[in-house]
């Protein structure tokens, strides 16, 4: 049923503006695949090219191995869930869901039966005859999913469908979407700017910036092993130090910054003497009263402590005023330093990555 999607050197130009630049993505059948990026990175353009509303300026899109060039949206094996859902307000729920079947000439009974069946699948019983305006946000969401599933698409395309929901419902719908995807085994292509959504739901994630695909990998790899500065800073928080690679020793390097020289893991496409940055996740950073022996330590002063419930963020500043954050779990294992106290920010070489500025619009982000 489900089909893979291949983007081969796909570009899309709007006048002189290149929205998507030579994207090469291979999505496997039955995969939950997310495009993650800030607004204007080209992810929605990719979605619209796959669904057929925009033609690529260059390159090829294949769905299930078949070239989609010249095939209109109504003839493609895809179903799109719009950001605002775009349900038909003048049709009752069941007609909305069975619209795709009506188009294919199914009988009224068959359509009704299919609608009831799908309503059960999305956990919306007894709503077939309701008007769209009678439904809550989450229910509308489910109807939109059911309407897309009704045409038995090989590929489901979702354009930030959860962005209009409140936090609780959003988290619930994440799990729901994931479960529906597992049950139906349809390939899901999910567009989002919310890293939490992308990481929590996807089998693989493509991080995009400025029309280019920066990294395609599993959520774990995207977070733990970002390939460049953009991916590292877009997905998750970091303590960042700008500097220069002095010497390379296997996978490790010695990195010189104005805060001192550190040992760190060398990321891809960084050579000796190139200007780059060190990225350390706050949860891999710790604060100690004494410098770590033979490790990476920076003297800092604690400026603020913010209590988040399950986590505690300790904010500190080094002598140049650079802001750093340390995240600790609220499990009673760590004694929090006093605000204003002098501490050392320490991190291991394994958890510090040296990455190039690639992919960033404005490389001058805070250091």
């Amino acid at each position, binding site marked *: 049923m489900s089909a893979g999607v291949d983007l081969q050197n796909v570009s899309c130009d709007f006048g002189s503006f290149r929205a998507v630049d030579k994207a090469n993505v291979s999505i496997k059948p039955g995969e939950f695949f997310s495009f993650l990026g800030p607004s204007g990175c080209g992810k929605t353009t990719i979605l619209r090219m796959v669904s057929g509303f925009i033609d690529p300026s260059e390159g090829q899109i294949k769905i299930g191995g078949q070239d989609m060039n010249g095939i209109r949206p109504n003839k493609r094996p*895809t179903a799109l869930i719009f950001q605002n859902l775009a349900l038909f307000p003048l049709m009752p729920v069941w007609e909305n869901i069975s619209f795709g079947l009506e*188009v294919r000439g199914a009988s009224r009974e068959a359509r009704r039966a299919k609608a009831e069946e799908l309503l059960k699948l999305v956990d919306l019983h007894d709503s077939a005859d309701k008007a769209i305006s009678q439904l809550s946000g989450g229910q509308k969401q489910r109807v939109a999913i059911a309407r897309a599933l009704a045409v038995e698409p090989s590929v489901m395309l979702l354009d930030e469908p959860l962005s209009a929901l409140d936090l609780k419902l959003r988290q619930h719908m994440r799990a729901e979407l994931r479960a529906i995807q597992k049950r139906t085994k349809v390939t899901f292509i999910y567009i989002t700017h919310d890293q939490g959504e992308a990481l929590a739901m996807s089998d693989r994630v493509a991080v995009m910036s400025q029309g280019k695909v920066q990294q395609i990998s599993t959520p774990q790899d995207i977070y733990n092993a970002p390939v460049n500065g953009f991916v590292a800073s877009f997905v998750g928080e970091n303590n960042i130090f700008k500097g220069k690679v002095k010497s390379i020793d296997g996978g490790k390097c010695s990195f010189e910054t104005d805060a001192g020289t550190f040992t760190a893991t060398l990321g891809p496409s960084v050579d000796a003497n190139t200007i780059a940055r060190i990225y350390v996740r706050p949860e891999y950073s710790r604060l100690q009263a004494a410098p770590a022996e033979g490790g990476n330590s920076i003297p800092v002063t604690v400026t603020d402590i913010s209590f988040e419930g399950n986590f505690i963020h300790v904010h500190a500043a080094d002598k140049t005023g650079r802001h750093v954050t340390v995240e600790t779990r609220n499990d009673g294992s760590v004694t929090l330093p006093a605000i204003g106290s002098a501490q050392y920010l320490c991190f291991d070489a394994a958890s510090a990555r040296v990455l190039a500025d690639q992919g960033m619009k404005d490389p001058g982000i805070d250091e």
Partner: protein
Amino acid sequence: MKELLRRYGHTLTWIFVALTAFWLLVLVILPQLYLLEESFRLYLPLADIGGPKDVYTLANYRSAFEQPTEWKFWLPFAWKPIILPFEAPIRMQVFVHTLLYSTVTTVITLILCYPVAFYLAKVANPRNVPLLFVGLLVPMWVSEILRAFAWFIILAFKGPLNMALVNMGIIESPIRWITGFNSVTFGLIYVYLLFMLLPIYNAIQSLDTNQMEAAKDLGASSWRTHWRVIIPHSKPGIASGCVMVFMLAAGSILVPTLLASTQSRWFTEIIQQAMFESQDWNTGSAYAFMLLVTCTVFVIGMMRVFRVKLSDIAR
């Protein structure tokens, strides 16, 4: 009312309310009531007014159903009338023709305007839309009488249209365009086109483009997208356009006067004749009310058939 008072204060609110009331009462309701009362009285010499002969009667209304004659019935788009096998009151013949060709005008205007409105609302580059609208509006800056007269000249037997067609060899001899109801229908469509276009444009424009794309994405053809999504959404606009064009066409006097022939008379011409040529306001009012009531009933009936509510149109 409270809202108005809060917003504009006492003086302005009073002026607003008084002006609206003046317009409604003095300019709309009172004259209509006067004519309604007149329509039930006989057209009498001055000396008899208020005398024993001055009674309320339905005679004026009845007169519309008198004088049966042979009915030359004009089918839409026909160049010759067909003679119906029965006689009908002469004014009723005109009345039926008027309603029929107002309907024809409305339907053709709708067929012409819907694609244009759709193009303007959803297809055209938004940057060009103001320019396109100027193009549509400029002819409307010329008065209705001039526009109708322009077509009278264009369609004349020895007019430019016939000349061009003959000279290009498309037709052999000039066509008498201004016969039957073709030229009137044509003129009415031209004159009232925008009253159809604008409400439909507004309605289609308010449709979320994603809904059209959603229908397409689910496999719908363009036709079905129009039929199931765009037309249902724009139904209030279509309805108000149709009501306006129908009412304007049925009540039009200038276009039929200029573009109708002696064989194709419009009911308004009969009203005008009674009022101004015979100076018989009583009969004229009676005919005017017949037209008004029939048209209103007809429109309400059509709205029922197409399941449009009055509140949809006012939206």
